């Protein structure tokens, strides 16, 4: 099957800065694809390369099998939901949504009808006459989504679209986006720095760092089986274990990772395990996050709320299931 978007050795340099560096990736048609990484990791530049706002310095990009280098954004059947929505302030909501159809020469009655439908799709029916300035952040976000979807794009690009929303709204929108994507079957490419968002929404995730793709896989793959220390640390802030430590438990001299929720806390001097000292506790609501010091190695553990906890400064014994210790590709 032809990939929806395909990058082959794509680089984009700004002067001496390698924003995107030799990236290879294939996005499957109809999937919800997330690009995850810290700011400056090149994920947004990748999105802009797909949209056509940037041109690759080298390498080739194809969209549904067609070469996209040198093709301007207005000739790509790809639409973007911008981070700060980029709604046209001088047009009302209906004309904002109908803009794409207007520039394609669709008649007024027809495009307004389509825009109304798109507004219903994002649950904003009857908001057409308002100005973008009169809407809340969440509503603007929906308008931006409707404005992109009304064009029936082959690929929908979303640039941190939930970043400006508060937590409750963000969780609602995550669910809505996910079900919308399932219902429409359009390929979604989603850029975020929030690993929780990427894991919960995406079918597959690409983790970016320093302009390179560190790992591509399903959320479970990325979370359970990180290939590098960066991925382990960035996705779910796993405990990164040095080769010497890992060798004691697995016999192999390689970097390892251990999820904070895999660590059990026991009273000191009982059974075998890793002796450590409790440094601090952070109450997070459903869980409590513990910072531990195991002979100079800083570890984190997450335990369910309500569990009986030792006091800060007390000595504890850490145990974990050896199967949960994941060995990474990076050798020691």
């Amino acid at each position: 099957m032809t990939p929806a978007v395909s990058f082959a050795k794509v680089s984009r340099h700004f002067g001496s800065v390698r924003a995107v560096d030799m990236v290879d990736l294939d996005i499957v048609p109809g999937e919800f694809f997330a690009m995850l990484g810290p700011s400056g990791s090149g994920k947004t530049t990748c999105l802009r390369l797909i949209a056509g706002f940037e041109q690759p310095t080298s390498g080739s990009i194809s969209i549904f099998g067609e070469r996209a280098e040198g093709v301007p954004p207005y000739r790509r059947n790809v639409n973007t939901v911008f981070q700060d929505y980029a709604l046209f302030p001088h047009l009302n909501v209906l004309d904002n949504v109908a803009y794409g159809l207007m520039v394609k020469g669709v008649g007024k009655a027809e495009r307004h009808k389509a825009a109304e439908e798109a507004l219903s799709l994002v649950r904003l029916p009857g908001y057409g006459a308002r100005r973008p300035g009169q809407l809340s952040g969440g509503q603007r976000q929906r308008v931006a989504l409707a404005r992109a979807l009304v064009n029936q794009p082959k690929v929908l690009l979303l640039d941190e679209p939930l970043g400006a929303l508060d937590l409750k709204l963000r969780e609602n929108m995550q669910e809505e986006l996910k079900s919308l994507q399932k219902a429409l079957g359009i390929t979604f490419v989603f850029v975020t720095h929030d690993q929780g968002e990427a894991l919960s929404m995406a079918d597959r995730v690409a983790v970016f760092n320093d302009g390179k793709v560190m790992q591509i896989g399903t959320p479970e793959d990325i979370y359970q089986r990180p290939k590098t220390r960066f991925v382990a640390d960035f996705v779910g802030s796993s405990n990164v274990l040095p080769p010497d430590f890992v060798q004691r438990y697995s016999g192999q001299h390689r970097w390892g990772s251990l999820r904070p929720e895999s660590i059990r806390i026991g009273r000191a001097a009982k059974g075998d395990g890793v002796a450590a000292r409790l440094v601090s506790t952070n109450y997070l609501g459903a869980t409590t996050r513990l910072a531990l010091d195991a002979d100079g190695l800083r570890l984190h553990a997450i335990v369910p709320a309500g569990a009986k906890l030792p006091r800060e400064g007390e000595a504890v014994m850490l145990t974990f299931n050896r199967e949960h210790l994941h060995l990474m590709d990076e050798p020691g």
Partner: protein
Amino acid sequence: MTIAVLNSNPAPAILPGSGGMRGALSDVFWRKPKLLLLLMLLPPVLWLGIVYIGSLFALLLQSFFSIDEFSGLINREFTLKTYGDLLQAANLDIILRTVTMAALVTLASAVIAFPIAYYAARYARGRWKALFYLGIMLPLWSSYLVKIYAWKLILAKEGILTWLLAKLHLLWLVDGWLLLPIVGGNSLSVSSTGTFIVFVYVWLPFMILPVQAALERVPGNLVEASSDLGASPGQTFRNVLFPLALPGIVAGSIFTFSLTLGDYIIPQIIGTSRLFIGQAVYSQQGTAGNIPLAAAFTVVPIVIMGFYLWGAKRMGAFDAL
């Protein structure tokens, strides 16, 4: 240790006033900010209200008086006779000529200013931006009269423009243009075309700066969004950039239009002997001593500007503000 230092800070929680008149005054102004605003605004409001609006009102009043044609004395009785005089063919001709010139100058300024303003707002950074401001402002620092006389030399028959075009074998272009009625003349410096060129040159900065300010406020991602939604660069200009820059263009056109309507020096030095409103006012209040007619002539640009702004507002020029 740091904490100990912080805890030993002996200062009280509420600091005493700094004392004296100034300290007391600061506190009063802080508590009653409107008082400060009133004190700051009073002088300019008095100036605008009495000196400016007052004299404008006096002018309006004068235009409703008339002149006794035999004695040359002003008859201080309310009449519309002077406005009737405005409608004489010769006077109407002056008004029409001035308004047409002002409209053309405004249009040309807008067309020339837009790309310059667009470049400055979107692309110029740091040193280039400074250079842009310097380039726009520099002509404003030199004397208006010097610039106009310089242009007279440039446009004269023996001037540098004729010389340059002769070298390029393009003189026939100018000669052909000068043969045309209305816009033509003996040379560029004594033709309406010359007047037009100098007007555009002199008022251009007043168009560039507001347009640049308007474009500066258009977020770059609106242009990207338009392109993303399938609009060609031309469509993006028509549907996004132009409507959002329109308040700036209107602001600039208020300058170029009203300054051209009122100017009497440029058409006197460069151009034909046919009068513009400003020259008519000058000669009516000076040599002719017909203050009421001069006043009535002055009211014309005010009324035109009023209609212009009303029309611009109705067209939605200020919606994007």
